[in-house]
């Protein structure tokens, strides 16, 4: 029996499930293929927040805000609870130098209309009673620009809601071949362990693994795996009231930002940027770092040590709280820190939505909406030409 769909989405994590949901909702007969279980990729190996304040001013922040606004709508609309929590975020500055740099960033975002503001040491200590008392202050992002969701429940939610519009989900699916028309290069079908699936359109949402799917049709997709690690605490009292990040996070994410922190060689070498959040289950997530380790997501002891060391600088009481687990995952890194949300000129019917690095959860809802608009030939909500795949040619 040969199956046939209007669109086939590859990869059932935060981006793919959102894309599939939006296409099914728009009336396309849609299938989503996943080589493992739903949410078994990067979306179950990351943290849980969506922020505007970890983005560069411009399209990066604009997409973040659009997605955060959209999260509020779908949290209300969806039957499946993906643990949406408005949270607020504090970007803590260890020194006056960091505070000044954060103030410049804040001014730029304010000029674009985003309601961020700087808070001094005293106000920071009132907002976060357990934080170290000698910090310079923080950049505060209100709940309108900083929320949390369960990243893997988000994937289950999109599948659950998508099924109401006829979405079909194939897990443990191996793709062996993608067939193109010999003359036009038009997408024709996909060969899998479920048999041949006929379709004129495929969307590659395989995240850090998108290059492997790309190779099946000779496409070079410039995405690399970048490893991140988080530690999980025992269930404990709420040590923090907001998502907490150190301003040095910008350092670990963007190499264009040029300043040095006074940290130990281990913290430096491990590219640690402290971040902390509590989860609805009352565990704390303590992070984090970014390292290139190919696809190896084994936990590294030196990373655990360095994250703990850095975390104690900001929240000394963590010293007596227990760590029960550490986990790592790969984020799909693109050199210009922007995802690819695009069609592909050389292969009619081939689309890519991948390369969101640490923003896959944050950008998930809006990416799904953009991809439906691109496939339907509608104008996108705003100009996303910077996300075009053609920028690499």
């Amino acid at each position, binding site marked *: 029996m040969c199956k046939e769909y209007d669109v086939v989405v590859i990869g059932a994590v935060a981006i793919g499930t959102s894309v599939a949901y939006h296409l099914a909702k728009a009336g396309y007969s849609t299938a989503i293929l996943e080589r493992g*279980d739903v*949410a078994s990729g990067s979306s179950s190996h990351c943290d849980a927040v969506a922020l505007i304040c970890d983005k560069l001013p411009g399209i990066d922040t604009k997409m973040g805000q659009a997605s955060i606004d959209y999260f509020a709508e779908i949290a209300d609309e969806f039957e499946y609870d993906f643990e949406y929590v408005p949270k607020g975020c504090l970007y803590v500055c260890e020194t006056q130098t960091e505070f000044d740099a954060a103030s410049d960033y804040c001014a730029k975002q304010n000029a674009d209309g985003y309601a961020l503001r700087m808070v001094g040491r005293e106000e920071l200590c009132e907002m976060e009673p357990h934080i170290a008392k000698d910090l310079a202050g923080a950049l505060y992002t209100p709940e309108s620009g900083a929320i949390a969701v369960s990243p893997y429940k988000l994937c289950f939610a999109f599948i659950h809601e998508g099924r109401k519009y006829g979405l079909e989900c194939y897990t443990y699916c191996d793709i062996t071949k993608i067939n193109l028309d010999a003359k036009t290069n038009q997408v024709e079908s996909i060969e899998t362990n479920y048999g041949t699936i006929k379709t004129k359109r495929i969307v590659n949402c395989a995240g850090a693994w998108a290059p492997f799917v790309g190779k099946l049709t000779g496409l070079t997709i410039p995405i690399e795996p970048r490893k991140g690690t988080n530690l999980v605490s*025992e269930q404990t009292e709420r040590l923090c009231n907001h998502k907490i990040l150190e301003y040095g996070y910008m350092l670990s994410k963007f190499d264009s930002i040029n300043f040095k922190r006074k940290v130990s060689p281990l913290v430096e070498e491990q590219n640690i940027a402290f971040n902390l959040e509590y989860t609805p*289950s009352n565990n704390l997530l303590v992070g984090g770092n970014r390292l290139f380790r190919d696809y190896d997501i084994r936990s590294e002891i030196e990373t655990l*040590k360095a994250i*703990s060391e850095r975390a104690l600088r900001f929240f000394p009481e963590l010293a007596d709280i227990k760590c*029960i*687990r*550490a986990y790592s995952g790969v984020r799909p890194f693109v050199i210009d820190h922007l995802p690819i949300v695009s069609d592909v000129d050389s292969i009619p019917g081939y689309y890519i939505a991948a390369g969101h690095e640490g923003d896959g959860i944050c950008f998930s809802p809006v990416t799904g909406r953009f991809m439906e608009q691109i496939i339907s030939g509608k104008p996108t909500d705003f100009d996303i030409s910077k996300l075009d795949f053609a920028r690499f040619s």
Partner: protein
Amino acid sequence: MSTELSDDMIVCRCEEVTVREIKEAIHEGARDIVGVKRRTRAGMGLCQGRTCEKLVQQILVQELGIHPKEAGTSSARPPVRPVTFGELAKGEVL
């Protein structure tokens, strides 16, 4: 293990997950220990599945008719037992 498990029995004590919830997760598409864990939190608590993993495996085997090996195990991740962040930072336990 071949005892009959009642649906109301708590399998994961740390997260208070029942046999019924695990069966529902399997019905929703979980095929292994990790799939059950992501859908129910079984094995995500303080003991990290030490107590319940074998029981979850038994339910998977019964419900799906698979070999225990196919149910897999939770990914092995440090620390092996809970240690404080203070101890971790000092490297005393590493």
